[in-house]
């Protein structure tokens, strides 16, 4: 067992990461040790990342203990870069974390500075100068490479950068040169955010945290209004809307609703959230209140003003109803039917979530001739149920323990299984329409060499 992390006091007493535990105990018999729990650490890091979302939506994890924030275009909201960094670190420290932070034009440079010069803000173009005196360990290269540099007498990033690129590439590979260029601000490599970036967002901060459901809903409504203005200006609507609630104590809760078509009407958005919040299995817990509420629009799509006429209005209203029911019950519960190109009865149609249903290329086609009785049942059993059949003068069958006597019988309509879909051949089915003596109509089929009978559906 080895030490994976040590605090400041332990470092001052001579302990270090990677030291065998027995060794450390021998040095300090009173040493307090806790088992490392990497998943919990990562979870905590993610929660901090969630909280950092309040400063910028562009947050990336840098495990095991780092976070990278892209604050481009966000710093002015907090009074400049220095002030933003100060505020971020101060509030994390207030929450009990030990934080080191730095701000630079590239992620590698910022990370190196955060390790060695806490609180530095480097103006664009100043990376090379400010990184030059730092030890090469700051670049977080693999230990073998670092050791090789040490042995060659190159101890700082400045000394390393002074060597020729070709030399470095020949000895250590292209990756090292790339990292170095990146650290010195000569190339750019974007960081990848941990959450998809919203296309548009609107947010409101509160000096006094808000608690009541009414305030939350009215805030969402007014955010929806301002979001809608932006969307309208760009001629777009959102397919996915996410409300993010930042609690005063750092907890973050995200609630998303999806819509079937691009939406930007504030009233609609507000209502969808009202439904969703109402139907949550675990309601949002305001605790000491939310100090920031953000409404983000994702999957923005072109949204042309609705057409005129009753038909367009009808369609829009139905789509709204579908979105509303989907927000409350889940989109897998509101379904629409689509035709499917097969003659197997149970596969001849499919149910798809109505929110995502697109107009089908196939059309519905009747099987019966004009003036003929329906040839497909109104209700189809989830799986055909076996029935016992006796053939005498009339056909007797027993289904779910109830006896039926066929007064009328018509068939067979032979439906062969699709041999190209199955490995083992499936028997074809002979379907019969049967009316019992009470007038109920059933759809039975027979399959196999020694016939087995099944009931597949009921007619109206």
């Amino acid at each position: 067992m080895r030490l994976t992390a040590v605090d400041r006091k332990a470092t001052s007493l001579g302990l270090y990461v990677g030291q065998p535990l027995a060794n450390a105990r021998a040095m300090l018999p009173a040493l307090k040790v806790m088992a490392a729990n990497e998943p919990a650490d990562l979870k905590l890091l993610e929660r901090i990342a969630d909280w950092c979302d309040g400063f910028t939506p562009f947050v990336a994890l840098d495990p095991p203990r780092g976070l990278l924030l892209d604050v481009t275009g966000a710093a002015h909201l907090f009074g400049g870069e220095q002030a933003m960094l100060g505020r971020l670190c101060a509030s994390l420290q207030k929450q009990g974390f030990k934080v080191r932070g730095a701000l630079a034009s590239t992620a590698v440079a910022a990370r190196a500075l955060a390790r060695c010069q806490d609180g530095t803000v480097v103006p664009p173009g100043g990376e090379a100068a400010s990184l030059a005196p730092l030890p090469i360990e700051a670049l977080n290269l693999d230990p073998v490479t670092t050791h090789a540099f040490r042995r060659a007498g190159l101890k700082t990033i400045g000394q390393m950068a002074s060597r020729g690129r070709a030399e470095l590439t020949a000895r250590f590979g292209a990756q090292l040169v790339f990292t170095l260029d990146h650290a010195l601000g000569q190339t750019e490599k974007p960081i990848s955010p941990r959450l998809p970036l919203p296309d548009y967002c609107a947010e409101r901060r509160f000096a006094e945290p808000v608690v009541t459901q009414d305030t939350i809903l009215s805030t969402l409504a007014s955010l929806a209004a301002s979001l809608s203005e932006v969307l309208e200006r760009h001629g777009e609507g959102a397919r996915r809307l996410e409300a993010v609630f930042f609690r005063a104590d750092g907890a973050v809760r995200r609630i998303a609703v999806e819509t079937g078509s691009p939406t930007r009407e504030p009233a609609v958005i507000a209502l969808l959230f009202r439904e969703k919040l109402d139907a949550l299995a675990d309601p949002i817990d305001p605790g000491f209140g939310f100090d920031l509420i953000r409404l983000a629009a994702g999957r923005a799509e072109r949204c042309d003003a609705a057409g005129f006429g009753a038909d367009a209005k009808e369609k829009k209203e139905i789509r709204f109803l579908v979105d509303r029911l989907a927000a409350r019950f889940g989109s897998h519960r509101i379904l629409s039917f689509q035709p499917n190109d097969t003659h197997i009865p149970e596969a001849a149609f499919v149910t798809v979530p109505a929110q995502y249903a697109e107009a089908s290329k196939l059309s519905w086609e009747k099987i019966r001739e004009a003036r003929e009785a329906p040839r497909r049942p109104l209700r189809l059993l989830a799986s055909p149920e076996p029935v016992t059949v006796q053939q005498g003068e009339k056909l007797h069958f027993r289904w779910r323990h109830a006896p039926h006597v066929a007064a009328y019988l018509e068939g067979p309509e032979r439906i062969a299984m699709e041999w190209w879909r199955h490995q083992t051949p499936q028997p074809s089915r002979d379907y019969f329409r049967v009316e019992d003596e009470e007038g109920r109509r059933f759809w039975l089929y027979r399959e196999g060499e020694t016939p087995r009978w099944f009931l597949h559906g009921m007619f109206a």
Partner: protein
Amino acid sequence: MTDTAEKIAVLRASLAKVEPAQTQARIPLGHDAADHCLKGGLVRGVLHEVLAAPGHETVAAGFAAALASRLGKHLLWIRQDFSALEHGELCATGLLELGLDPSRLLLLRVADVSGILRAASDALSCAALAAVVIEFPGNPKLLDLVAQRRLMLGAAEKGVSAILLRFGAKQDAGAAETRWLVRAACSPAQEENWGRPVFDAQLLRNRHGQTGHWVMEWSCDDGQFAANCGAVVSSSGDRPAAAAMESLRCVA
């Protein structure tokens, strides 16, 4: 006497204020006797109730689907999850055969009774829907007079009709405009083309008229009901049943 007459007139007027005016157009079902009894047909924007006779659930569902398709184009069908196991899933091809357009039908599956009521009240506020079919099992406590009255008011607000389709339910006090008890009727004897949906429909309750009991046939081609006169189109003996039995014997 005139005093009483005046009083009655005043009371009628005040009633008319309380009850929403029943001046909406009525939609004829196509069955003359039933239409006469309903004073012209079904009213839009009210609650209709269809009770299934035990064992005749699918037939009642067919009747409800037929009523709904008379009322207009866009329909929503609400059902509980277990209903698909118990009574089978709605079959789109079957609906098409009945003369309904499956692409205009939405199906909502909900987990419990309170969800059904909640969804129904949401759906009734969507004016683009013509009717909402609400499948209800048994006599749940939640579906009391208040809940039914609420559905009735919800239906009246936007003119969306609600059709309460009840399986295995005992008759109870209700707020519905009409209440039907539906069972299957036998196909007319000796008919070649048997098997068209024929309903034995009993109008148990009609708030603005008389009740009745008819055998109604749904014409899948015209999308309306017709009186079932039992007319024999062709009298070529008992051909269908006999021929099919014959084919069965051949296999056996």
